[in-house]
């Protein structure tokens, strides 16, 4: 039981991390909470499905999906969010509306049947600690870790990443040294979209693509980001591990019924005790004051 809990707790954490990385990155770098993340995630899922259905080879379909979804992310910022940038409430309403429009548009198109699914990248299983784990879930763990490392490296070791981070820390100072605010935000929306697409092609093969998943993704991303801290990659990883294992433990020792409540409880507790998140720094000073 314990071995299984350890293994599937890790899988669960990795799934959460993949789902939240794009949202967290956009939030951390542009300061805009992109509530259309769930819609973008589902867009990527359906896009990959139709590209594969058209007969494209898997690798090409995946690369195209990631690229097109990144463009969609950038377009959302350039066409809509840019007009309300800086007015937090309007940003929330605009991105939320886009997300709802996308999800309901899919429903309107009739994507409600059970026929939409993506294939596993690799089929097969192996045994670890007497627990059988399939290749797909193993890959999810690997990809989640790689993306987290990439995200940390990108924001701390590349000029572009540092520019984005600078913009997130203090927009006026960043502008003063020549960093274009809109360029930075467009870039972060595009990367956020690409991350959502990667999450979609990794996670959606576990089941079937369904519109309601888009709403759940948003809640997950929000919970993880609030718990970990807005700009902190390490905080994000820590939050995913805490939530991932908390869910599996709740499900195993109490009842699966309660595990969804873990997200909401996490948001409430963190907002009450440490609003900047477990490892968030941006608002820490304000909190002390």
């Amino acid at each position, binding site marked *: *039981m314990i071995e*299984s*809990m350890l293994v*599937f707790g890790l*899988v*669960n954490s990795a*799934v959460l991390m993949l789902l939240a990385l794009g949202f967290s990155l956009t939030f951390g770098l542009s300061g805009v909470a992109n509530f259309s993340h769930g819609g973008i995630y589902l867009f990527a899922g359906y896009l990959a499905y139709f590209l594969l259905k058209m007969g494209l080879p898997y690798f090409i379909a995946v690369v195209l999906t990631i690229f097109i979804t990144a463009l969609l992310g950038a377009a959302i910022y350039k*066409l*809509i969010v840019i007009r309300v940038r800086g007015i937090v409430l309007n940003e929330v309403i605009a991105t939320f*509306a886009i997300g*709802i*429009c996308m999800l*309901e*548009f899919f*429903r*309107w198109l*009739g994507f*409600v*049947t*059970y*026929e*939409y*699914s993506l*294939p*596993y990248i690799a089929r097969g*299983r192996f045994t670890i600690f007497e*627990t*059988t*784990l*399939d290749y*797909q*879930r193993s890959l999810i763990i690997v990809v989640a870790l790689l993306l987290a490392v990439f995200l940390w490296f990108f924001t701390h070791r590349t000029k572009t990443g540092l520019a984005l981070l600078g913009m997130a820390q203090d927009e006026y100072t960043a502008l003063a040294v020549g960093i274009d605010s809109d360029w930075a935000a467009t870039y972060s929306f595009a990367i956020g979209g690409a991350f959502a697409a990667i999450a979609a092609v990794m996670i959606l093969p*576990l*089941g*079937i693509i*369904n*519109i*309601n*998943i888009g*709403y*759940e993704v948003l809640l997950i991303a929000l919970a993880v980001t609030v718990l970990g801290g807005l700009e902190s990659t390490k905080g994000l990883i820590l939050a995913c591990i805490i939530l991932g294992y908390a*869910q*599996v433990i709740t*499900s*195993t020792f109490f*009842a*699966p*019924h309660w*595990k*969804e409540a873990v997200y909401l409880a996490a948001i409430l507790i963190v907002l009450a005790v440490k609003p900047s998140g477990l490892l968030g720094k941006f608002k820490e000073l304000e909190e002390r004051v």
Partner: protein
Amino acid sequence: MKKKKALWGLLVALMLLSVWSISGCSPQEAPTQVASGEPIVVAIPTALGSIEGRDGVRAIEMAVEEINAAGGVNLAGEQRPFEVVTIDTREHEAGIPIHDALAALERIILTEEPHAILFGAFRSEVLLASMDVIAEHKIPYIVTTAMTPEMQTKIAENYDEYKYIFRMCLNAPYLVMYLNQMMGYLETEFGFNKAFIVAQDVLWAKGTGGGVEAWLNNNNWEVVGFDVYPTGAGDFSSSLTKARQGGAQVIVPIFDMPQSGVLVKQARDMEVPALLAGFISPAAPENAWDVFEGELDGLINFIFEIGPLPAEAVPMSIEFNKKFGEKFGESARASLAGHAPGPSYDSVYVLKEAIERAGSLDGDAIVAALEETDTYGVIGRIRFDENHQVVYGMDPAETALGGAFQWREPGVRVPVFPEMIAEDDIELPPYM
């Protein structure tokens, strides 16, 4: 500037489109109207975005088209066509409150003034709440999805108020009856005596799970566990681990949510050596084998009402599949839901016959005529019991029929239960 305006226009159009699809009332004219005279308005307030809702509405439209093409309903000597109006209650989605679905029901009653309501509530919770609205408006209401037996209890307790409500689909106790009989068969045939139940956290599924659990406990089975998952849950590893460690030979899944497809794949991924036998809605359609990449081998899945599963013992079910495929395409037929299409199609004919017997559109007269129903449809023989539930059993010549099939290589659904429709014995899959 023009571009800017165009973009905003596009956004507004998209939003309006979305709002319209969320709460919109979308009347649909009945296709061919050979019959003359004022139409008989049939309202469908349900979760149109669900697969059961979509297929149920299609089945109703198909029946309406057939009836209208054949001259319509003979109402006291005058041929009147049916007209269908729909409204989306969205009740199948997580987080949609019951009062939203009720508001949609009230709205279509007040704006369209229907003579009867078909398909009805998708969720049992909404059905129970709708009963008072129906009682107030006194409109005959035939439900073909929601399964709670509480509906019958309420009718039994207050017949005069709730007599307008009828149910043609399977209810939870009948599903329990079928599941229990099949568990008995598995015990006799394979010596199984350990089961694990996993159900969705909705009224009908929990009720069904509870019924199966009680029967198993009373029949010397060991129930290794009974887990309930909220709608939308996508990881079943803890239950599957418990099932394996407890030595469960049968896992009984009871779900109508799309995410339950994960359970099937995860059980194979974790190599759980147990037979899955129950209801997983995404695994019911004929095209599910391809969707699940062949991971369904051995799964026993129920079709709540014969119709979507063509069975030789019920010739009308074969005819129904043929006509549905011709009208909506093979792809639509192959994705037919395992619950609702059959009784939804039959409900139109049952209503037509009741109106003709009553010779009136008066709610009370139609109710009295509906109670006398004794006819055959794609679900078998159709008769209502004293609490307005269609009687289900094992012989389609005597009662309506539900059944189970087993997925087999190379992706075929083999009817295996009950005996009247079984085309082969249940086989244990290779992983057991």
